[in-house]
C-alpha cells in the first residue's frame, strides 16, 4: 500500500511521461459516503463563479494568441499563482500529508525533492522559454530544427504526458469525489470532464488561468487556515505537536529522522534527478511562461510560484505531522473503529480526517470543494496543453505548414478540447480502481539542449528523444514496482523504481552522439541558425509580444 501510494504521488507530480500500468488501487476499498450537502453547495458556488469567468473570458478570446496564451496579458504575480495552481494538485495535498503521516521525516525529504526544481527552472530556463516560445513547448524544441519531425515528436511527447497525467487526475477525481461528496464514480468523472471542456473550449487560457488562480488561493488559504486551527490545538507549539506525534506513532522517535525511503543512494539520486528535471518538462507548466508579456514578468512569475509552492509544502508538512496524533489515535477515522487499522477512505485521507477533527463538517465540506476545484483546474490546464499540441503543432504547423487561418486553428483547438475531454472521461472510467504511475524524462533533454547547445541537430534530437522515451518506459516495466509487484514476477530485471538516472543519461548521450556525427547539409544550417536563436534567447529580440493579433 505504501509503495503504491508513493508511486502514485511520484506519478502525479513527476510526470514527464510515460506509460501506465494497472495495479491494485492506491485508494483501496473506497466506500461511497453519504451525500455531503455542504461540500456540494460550496463546490457549486465555485463552479458558478468559474463559469461566470469563462463567459467573460470567452468574450475576450478572439485570436489564437488569446486562446493559447491569454494574449500574453497575464501579470507575473497572477501567473505565479497560476503556475503554483498547476503544480499543487489535490494529489500533492493528500499525498504529501499522507507520507508524513505514515513515514514522518521521509515525507519532508520527498517534498524538498519536488520543490528544488523551481529555482533551477528560473536560473536556467524561464527567460529563455519566454523569449523563444510562442504557444507551445514544441515551438522551442523545433525552433531551428526540422519543423515536421521535431515538432511532431515534441507534440506527441506532450500529448502522451497530458494523456497519462489526465488518467491520474481523472481516476483521483473519481475516487476522491465518491468519497467526499458521495457521488457515483462515473458521475464524478463525467462532471469533471464536462466542466473541463467548457472552461477550455470557451474560455481558453484566460479562463483556465483564472480558474487556476482562484483555486490556488483557495488551496493555500484553506491549508493555512487548517494549519492555524491545528496548531491552536497544540498550544501553538511545534514541540508539543511533535511530542504527541512521537507518542502516537508506531515508528516512535524514528519518525523524526530519515528512514528507509532514501536508504539507497543511487535510487535517491535517480529520483531526485527525475523530480528536478521532470517539472521542467511538463507541457502545461511550460505553456504558462508564454502567457506573460516579457521575460521580466516570466522571472517574477517563477519567484511568486516558488514562494507559494514552498509555503504550501511547509504547510502540508505541519498538517501531516499533526494528523499523526489527532487522526492516528481517533477510532472514528478507522474502519471498524480499530485504531492503527485501515483508515476510512484509504491511506490518502489523513488530511481530510484532520480537517473534520479540527474544523468540523463545514470546514471538511470547504476543503472537499477545494480538492474538487483543484482537480478541475489541473485537468483544464492539461487539456489546454494537449489541445494546443494538436491544433498549433500538428494541425497548423505540420499538416497545414503554417497556412491555416486563425479561425481554422481555433476551430481545431476547440474540437481537440472536446475530444480530449471525452478521452479523459473514457480513460477515467476505463482505469477506475487502477493505480497509475509514470516514469520520467522525455521532453527535458531535447528542450534544454535546443536552448543551450549549438551542435544539436534534427537527427540527434529525434533519436535522443526516442531513446529517452523507450528506455524510460522499458525500465519502468522492468522495475521492482511493476515487474514484481504488479506483473508478479519473482525478481526485478532493473533494480530501481526511478529510471531517470539511466534514461536521461541515455537520451543525452544518443542526442550528443547522433548530433556530432551528423554531417548533412541540414545539420550545418541548423548549427548556423543557433546564432539567431541565441541572440533572441538572450535579449528577447523578436520575441512574441503581448497581444500578437
Amino acid at each position, binding site marked *: 500500500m505504501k509503495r503504491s501510494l508513493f508511486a502514485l504521488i511520484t506519478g502525479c507530480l513527476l510526470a514527464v511521461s510515460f506509460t501506465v500500468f494497472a495495479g491494485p488501487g492506491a485508494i483501496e476499498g473506497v466506500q461511497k459516503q453519504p451525500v455531503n450537502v455542504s461540500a456540494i453547495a460550496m463546490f457549486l458556488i465555485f463552479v458558478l463563479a468559474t463559469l461566470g469567468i469563462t463567459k467573460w473570458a470567452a468574450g475576450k478570446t478572439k485570436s489564437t494568441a488569446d486562446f493559447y496564451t491569454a494574449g500574453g496579458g497575464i501579470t507575473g504575480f497572477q501567473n505565479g499563482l497560476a503556475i503554483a495552481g498547476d503544480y499543487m494538485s489535490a494529489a500533492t495535498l493528500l499525498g504529501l500529508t499522507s507520507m508524513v503521516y505514515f513515514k514522518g521525516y521521509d515525507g519532508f525529504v520527498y517534498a*524538498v525533492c519536488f520543490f528544488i526544481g523551481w*529555482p533551477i527552472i528560473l536560473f536556467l530556463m524561464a527567460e529563455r522559454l519566454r523569449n523563444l516560445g510562442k504557444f507551445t513547448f514544441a515551438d522551442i524544441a523545433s525552433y531551428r530544427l526540422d519543423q515536421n519531425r521535431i515538432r511532431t515528436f515534441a507534440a506527441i511527447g506532450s500529448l502522451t504526458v497530458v494523456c497519462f497525467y489526465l488518467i491520474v487526475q481523472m481516476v483521483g477525481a473519481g475516487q476522491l469525489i465518491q468519497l467526499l461528496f458521495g457521488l457515483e464514480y462515473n458521475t464524478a468523472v463525467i462532471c469533471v470532464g464536462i466542466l473541463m471542456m467548457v472552461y477550455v473550449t470557451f474560455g481558453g487560457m484566460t479562463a483556465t488561468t483564472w480558474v487556476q488562480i482562484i483555486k490556488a488561493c483557495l488551496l493555500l488559504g484553506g491549508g493555512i487556515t487548517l494549519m492555524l486551527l491545528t496548531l491552536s490545538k497544540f498550544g501553538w507549539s511545534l514541540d508539543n505537536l511533535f511530542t504527541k506525534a*512521537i507518542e502516537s506513532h508506531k515508528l516512535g522517535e524514528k519518525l523524526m*529522522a530519515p528512514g528507509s525511503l*532514501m536508504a539507497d*543512494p543511487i535510487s*535517491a539520486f535517480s529520483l531526485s534527478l527525475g523530480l528536478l528535471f521532470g517539472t521542467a518538462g511538463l507541457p502545461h507548466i511550460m505553456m504558462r511562461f508564454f502567457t506573460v508579456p516579457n521575460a521580466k514578468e516570466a522571472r517574477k512569475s517563477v519567484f511568486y510560484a516558488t514562494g507559494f509552492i514552498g509555503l504550501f509544502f511547509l504547510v502540508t508538512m505541519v498538517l501531516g505531522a499533526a494528523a499523526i496524533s489527532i487522526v492516528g489515535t481517533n477510532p472514528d477515522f478507522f474502519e471498524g473503529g480499530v485504531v492503527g487499522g485501515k483508515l476510512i477512505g484509504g491511506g490518502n485521507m489523513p488530511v481530510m480526517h484532520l480537517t473534520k477533527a479540527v474544523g468540523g463538517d463545514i470546514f471538511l465540506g470547504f476543503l472537499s470543494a477545494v480538492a474538487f476545484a483543484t482537480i478541475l483546474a489541473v485537468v483544464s490546464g492539461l487539456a489546454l496543453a494537449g489541445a494546443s499540441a494538436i491544433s498549433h503543432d500538428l494541425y497548423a504547423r505540420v499538416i497545414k505548414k503554417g497556412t491555416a487561418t486563425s479561425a481554422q486553428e481555433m476551430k481545431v483547438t476547440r474540437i481537440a478540447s472536446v475530444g480530449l475531454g471525452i478521452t479523459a472521461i473514457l480513460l477515467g472510467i476505463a482505469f477506475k480502481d487502477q493505480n497509475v504511475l509514470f516514469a520520467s524524462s522525455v521532453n527535458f533533454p531535447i528542450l534544454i539542449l535546443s536552448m543551450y547547445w549549438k551542435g544539436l541537430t534534427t537527427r540527434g534530437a529525434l533519436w535522443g528523444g526516442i531513446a529517452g522515451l523507450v528506455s524510460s518506459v522499458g525500465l519502468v516495466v522492468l522495475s521492482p514496482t511493476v515487474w514484481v509487484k504488479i506483473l508478479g514476477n519473482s525478481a526485478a530485471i532493473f533494480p530501481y523504481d526511478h529510471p531517470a538516472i539511466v534514461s536521461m543519461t541515455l537520451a543525452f548521450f544518443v542526442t550528443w552522439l547522433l548530433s556530432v556525427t551528423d554531417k548533412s547539409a541540414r545539420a550545418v544550417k541548423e548549427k548556423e541558425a543557433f546564432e539567431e536563436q541565441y541572440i533572441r534567447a538572450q535579449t528577447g529580440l523578436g520575441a512574441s509580444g503581448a497581444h500578437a493579433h
Partner: protein
Amino acid sequence: MSQKTLQEKIRGNPKFAELVGKRTRFAIILSLVVLVPYYSFMLLVSLQPQIFAAKISEGSVITIGWPIAALIVIGGWLLTGVYVNRANGEFDRLTQEVLKEANK
C-alpha cells in the same frame, strides 16, 4: 534594417558580451548554491541518516532534520528573489541598452 545586421550589431556590442557573461555566471553560481547543499543533503539522508536525528536543543523532540529541510526550501525561494532582483534591474537595463544601440 534587416534582422541579420541587427544581430551582427548586437553581437559586436561589448555590452552584449558583458550581459551574457554576467548573467551566465550569476545563474551558474546560484544554481550551485541550490544544488550543492541539496545533493549533499540527499547524500547524507541516504548514507548518514543518523546525523539528522540530533535534537535542535536540550529538551526538544524536534530533530535538526526538520529545520534543515525547511531551510533548503526557504533558501531556494529567497535565491529566486535574489536572481529576479538582479535580472529585472541590472540585466534588463543592459539588455535595453544593447537593443537600443543596435537599432540606432
